[in-house]
């Protein structure tokens, strides 16, 4: 088993002191270790934002692409070589703002990608603008008089779009985050883990204390059934003062890569390119 320490890259993180990403990065490495992933058989795909830096700090293969385009890259990596573990790292802007279309389609596609969304309800890297998950009324540089829209509901959208693993956790809950991330990594198909992760520099509202007062763990209740889609949908859509965290919904469904018949024999990347016989193809043009 690869230890979390062995997953540390030669390059050191440089987020703001106290940033929730430090805890998230540690949990990520612990979960990867627990899930038994092999570094050379793992690709961490990220976009742009504070979350986008993750691949630099984890000793696996990494691809740090464009803002919002984590899932198309991750989807293709998985289709090109479905023997790899493919992990996506996004922020709330990356996943739910600019990348929202890809998010919806990845959910319905059930591609084997584990998606960790670092949700701090603010644009941190660009020095503090409102994000799709900022609360209604939240004031920032881009919405000085308060945001007018309702916040984006990633869990409800994921469930409605057909995601097969939908969870939320909080970096302040060390065991919980590690456990949920591990479960997500072990899930077959697309998994979303929305992770509350305070931005200590630009989001004065949603702080560690703010979250600690509100989060409660749904899976502590033995009656909670993660296979009940309607219950999960009710829970993530009803208004409440408290913030539920845990695995909301999980189902077993064939993944996209399971249903692509061309790659059932071997991963696409192992196909030979040499001397491909196209004579039949050319004869058909006659």
């Amino acid at each position, binding site marked *: 088993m690869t230890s979390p320490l062995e997953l540390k890259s030669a390059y050191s993180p440089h987020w703001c002191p106290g940033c929730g990403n430090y805890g998230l990065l540690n949990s990520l490495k612990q979960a990867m270790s627990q899930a038994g992933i092999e570094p050379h058989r793992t690709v961490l795909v990220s976009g742009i934002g504070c979350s986008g830096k993750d691949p630099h700090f984890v000793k696996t293969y990494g691809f740090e692409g464009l803002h919002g385009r984590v899932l*198309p890259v991750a989807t293709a990596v998985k289709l090109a070589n479905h023997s790899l573990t493919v992990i996506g790292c996004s922020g709330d802007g990356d996943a739910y703002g600019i990348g929202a279309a890809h998010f919806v389609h990845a959910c319905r596609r059930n591609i084997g990608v584990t998606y960790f969304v670092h949700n701090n309800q603010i644009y941190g890297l660009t020095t503090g603008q409102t994000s799709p998950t900022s609360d209604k009324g939240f004031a920032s540089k881009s919405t000085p008089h308060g945001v007018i829209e309702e916040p984006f509901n990633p869990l409800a959208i994921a469930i409605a779009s057909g995601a097969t693993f939908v969870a939320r956790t909080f970096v302040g809950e060390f065991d919980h985050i590690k456990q949920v991330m591990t479960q997500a990594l072990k899930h077959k198909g697309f998994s979303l883990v929305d992770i509350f992760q305070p931005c200590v520099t630009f989001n004065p509202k949603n702080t560690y204390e703010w979250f600690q007062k509100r989060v409660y763990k749904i899976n502590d209740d033995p009656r909670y059934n993660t296979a009940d889609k309607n219950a999960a949908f009710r829970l993530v859509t009803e208004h409440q003062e408290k913030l539920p965290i845990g695995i909301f919904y999980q189902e077993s469904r064939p993944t996209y890569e399971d249903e692509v018949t061309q790659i059932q024999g071997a991963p696409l990347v192992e196909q030979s390119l040499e001397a491909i016989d196209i004579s039949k193809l050319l004869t058909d043009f006659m």
Partner: protein
Amino acid sequence: MKKDLCITIAGEAGQGINVSALFLARAFIRRGLYAFLLTENPNSIKLEHAWCSIRVSQEMIYAQSHEVDILVALDRDSILKHSRELSSGGILVWDGEGIPLEEKDKRADIRYCSVPFESLIKTLGVSPLQRNIVAMGAVLALVGDELSLIKEIIQEQFSRKGNDVVAHNNAALEAGFSHVSKTCQICLGEKLISQNTNRRMFLNGNEAISAGAIKAGCKFIAAYPMTPASSILHFLAAKENDYTIVVKHAEDEIAAMNMAIGANFAGVRAMTATSGGGFCLMTEALGLAAQSETPLVVVLAQRPGPSTGQPTHTSQTELEFALHSSQGEFPRVIIAPGDAQECFFETFNAFNLAERFQVPVIILTDKYLAESYSAQEVFDDKSLRIDRGKLLNQEQLNAAGIYKRYAESSDGVSARALPGMMNGLHVATSYEHDEFGYYLEDLDGVQRMSDKRFAKNQVMANIVPQPRLYGPAKAELTFVAWGSSKNPCLEAMRMLEQDGIPVNFLHYVYLWPFPAQATETMLKNVKKTLIVEGNKTGQLMRLIRTETGIVINESLLVYNGQPIYPIDIYQKVKKALA
């Protein structure tokens, strides 16, 4: 007697015009003749006007003709729109019962051959959709051919739909054929009937590109439908099981391009194909491929813009766009094939170049090239070799010591390791980075990495094929053109030759890195130059001037959405040399 014939079939979209034109042309091809098929479907919506033009000859032909010998008009609108294109002595085939023409509306210099499509179909009890099959029979009678080859094609195409369907089609075919044989004593095609059995292919540019991609080992295509690129997606999707290709119809072009990059990063040869509007959405990711040094092949099939423009027409307006698309500066390759042969071989080469130099390669085509069919000798693919460049295998990687994905090198290309390999861990990134792929903010380093990438440009410039000169070394005038203008230029060159006017033609397939030295050498001593381009601003003309200082003398710029007609070039030359 003319040495070649042009047959136009016109009617409403949904009347099977494309199918009948393609079947007819293929029958001529099997006869050992040459053919060129231009399709014009201004709108895919049923009932809108559409037409196809088949030119057929015993000799090699390059392009469509402006003069029509047989016009099959399946509705009144087609008579109004196309009968003026009929050359003197030409024949109008129409349903004289359904569409009575008054004598005063008839042209004195053409012949009229009425085929009662409606009543023939009623008598046979077949579907009104088979008017086009009746029309094929009529045309074959007019050109003095017989029905065996076309029946062979009908059998091949319709047998899986059942014997009834084949029988109905054959009946419709024979009805058209025998009606014309009995009623019109005209035969236009004596000289066409060739005994040559040399079989050729008949295919369009998109099919040739698809075949080239398959041969090159392209195993992944992600695309979003957009005319005129969509048929590449369709073609590869139809072959996905035969050649083990994963085809992803993505949610949008941004996803398509990022998927193509992701698959390439993982070690699979991958491409995307789109038109200008889709390419607009892809440009950010074009730079991602360049910065992360991920190989990438993208087909940009042009149509007239700006914006939605003329979706089903043709243009050559995106050379400058392809050259400058995406922010920042980076090396790229731009290839503009001129015909189906070049579409096949240059697509194969595009995949090699993309991997060898780890750069984005843009294949620049247009509706005219993508959708027009021509006769081609069977592609000789025996000498084609896959070149994956500096792609390491596990043994090489084990021997490499500390692996640096972006190690500096004399040609600017660094060795590639793929996810899944031991000892090759790295980050590929959209940020400026050091040799390992980690963030880089040291200013010297930034400049060094940019120089590293640009080192590829020089090496590529030395190895990519140079523009090719067609025709005599000495000429009164030299055409200069790129991409799909090739065939109209070659055709015009032949027309001028017959008039005793020596012209030659400099054709560019590889447009970037720009072959400045070859351009200077070739254009330095010519008498007069004429640029032929499908755009308003003369984009190659300006590029030549920017790169070499050479000023082109004359220009023929066509930007009405139509392909360039050889006759227009011919007339332009006559005027320029007068």
